[in-house]
């Protein structure tokens, strides 16, 4: 399945950041200070020990992609920024949804809808079931509306993670300085 970027009221940016304390605070503070309205923000590890990756979705009402990228890039701990709006990319959101399943009717309806999308039932008890749904933000939203009539009792979404398609790799060689026993600071990737 290919996904083409479509014009939305949202800006999707990916930031590679140093994996150290306080970085999330700096980014949150920046967005608040510049009155950028964050729709979702996810942080997670990458294949590099010292680099975390954030996917940030911002409401475009008070921001434009260049403004968001330029301000993020100003932060010293932000290593690299990529705006995904005008690049082909894939994005995924994950939802865990606890729904009522205390009669045969609700269980059958739930199974039917899950097969259709598809979503997975990952836990089931006498009264409730937990469903895992992975997809684009819109796809997940659509699923939620379909099962809402059954009776949602609890829900959580991860927020969007995104990645550009093809060989335009968004990565960094970043390694932090190493402080050896005698206090010598080295950049392993520079020296």
């Amino acid at each position: 399945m290919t996904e083409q970027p479509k014009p939305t009221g949202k800006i999707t940016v990916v930031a590679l950041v140093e994996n150290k304390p306080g970085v999330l605070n700096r980014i949150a503070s920046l967005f608040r200070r510049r009155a950028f309205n964050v729709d979702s923000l996810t942080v997670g590890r990458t294949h590099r020990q010292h680099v975390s990756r954030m996917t940030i979705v911002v409401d475009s009402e008070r921001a434009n992609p260049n403004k968001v990228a330029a301000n993020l890039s100003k932060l010293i701990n932000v290593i690299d920024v990529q705006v995904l709006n005008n690049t082909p990319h894939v994005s995924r959101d994950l939802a865990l949804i606890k729904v009522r399943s205390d009669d045969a009717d609700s269980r059958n309806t739930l199974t039917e809808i899950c097969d259709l999308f598809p979503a997975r039932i990952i836990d089931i008890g006498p009264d409730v079931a937990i469903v895992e749904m992975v997809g684009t933000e819109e796809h997940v939203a659509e699923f939620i509306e379909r099962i809402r009539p059954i009776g949602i009792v609890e829900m959580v979404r991860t927020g969007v993670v995104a990645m550009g398609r093809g060989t335009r790799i968004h990565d960094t060689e970043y390694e932090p300085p190493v402080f050896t026993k005698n206090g010598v600071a080295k950049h392993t990737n520079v020296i």
Partner: protein
Amino acid sequence: MRLTGAEIILECLIREGVEVMFGYPGGAILPTYDAMTKYTDRLHHVLVRHEQGASHMADGYARATGRVGVCIATSGPGATNLITGLATAMMDSSPIVAITGQVTVPAIGSDAFQETDVTGATLPVTKHNYLVTDVEELAYTIKEAFHIARSGRPGPVLVDVPKDVQNAVTEFYYPEEEIHLPGYRPPQGASEDQVAEMLDLLHNAQRPVILAGHGVTMSGANNELQELAERAQIPVTLTLLGKGAIPQDHPMVVGWMGMHGDAACNNAIQEADLLIALGMRFDDRVTGNIKTYSPHSKKIHVDIDPSELNKNILVDVPVAGDLKTVLRQVLPKMQDRSHPEWLNRIRDWQEDADERDILKRDTPGKLLAAQVINDLWKYTEGNAITVTDVGQHQMLEAQYYPHQRPSTMLTSGGLGTMGFGFPASIGAKFGMPNEEVWAIVGDGGFQMTLCELATAVQENINVNIAIINNGFLGMVRQWQELFYDRRYQSTPMLGPDFCKLADAYGIANRRVTSRDEVQSAVEFARSVNGPVLIEFQVEKEDMVYPMVPAGADLHDMKRRPKTGEEA
């Protein structure tokens, strides 16, 4: 060499070229103060009377010299008192490094005595900040802090050092290699395409205007700016912090722009067909209503901070780069031009403004702030470093004290920090001991930081203080007169007898109440070695004209009526 963290801090400061630091001791920074006793021959510590003063002094030092200013404070209240100064430096891109003590690493987060989350609190008002929890990282962090403070778009950097890190001992090694920060890459020059686009606009403009800001001097592009103006015959308008970027008596200089700027500048900007904005950031105080700002012009904007481009004003050619580098790319390829009609048009506006000049009026028996500042210019041969506070006197300084050299007019432009002027003048004098330094302050702002009078005396620092005393918060009063139907709520202001106050500190002083006393008072101040305070009792309800009301169109200026036209 095994040293304590405290000693490492001071060793690093020396290696960064620091000679003077402004600060105030306290519990969590005591190890560093104790270590200072070993470095008194190389590092001079100026004891301030309030940490805000230390931050403004470091800022004044940095603005006057272009080098990094240093201030030091203890944890908690010591550090929070720096915040106004950090915010001031942040807005005006002034390079300072603040070192603060912090409670010990194990105590962090326990609401210990004098504990504040200083890196959290200063995050929005610093370019970057650090909490150093391991002495092994200390030297490298301080080197990084100075690098970040002075490079790219300069700004304040804070290093928070817990007390146990100051006490910890390690082998001292000063990192000799260059700082390499993968997430910090200040832009360099323009692309070839951008140079071509700039040249195309420069060659085809009929009514071009240069807008020169603080970035010109910070980038050291003063000669390049002058060459651009002369060869392309482009009139130059200055921002408040751009004053001195080019000699103000240069024939291409029109004046300064904005809310209280020269009408000719504002008119030229509005009528222009090309704006060349160099190292400035289209602050609301220079644009007025952005919807009607310079509506007929193409716009080139060169700034080292990419986030400034297209922030307030959308431009045609945004260039993220070091101004000097960019101008050096453009100038060799630029053809000379002339715009005699345009320059004549601007000259007409200037002549009209001259007719409205308050200095040309007969004002018998009155002492006006504008007269004081213009006389100060005259009797200091226009050659002093002036450090202003914020308000009417600040705008009048910009109008009536033309500056010929860069970094000789120091003022809190972006943040508009009252209380900045006097302490910043002390910092400036430490940085430029051979220059004549005048603090020009209002009676309101001066009372915010006048505790530093004791600092000036203790250091026997040779600054001259000109208090423009009108017994009001004058600029606020002006707004109340114009926009609040003269309801002078909380603007009439009682002050002390400033001369008796100076006496109490043992500071030489004079009081001036009439124009014919100004010259001798200025000469008196210049003859005294050490601080001098001159109180000028000026007209109480005076106005600063022209004025673009907040949010109004830039060409919609309130002007002083011409003689005979007064209502």
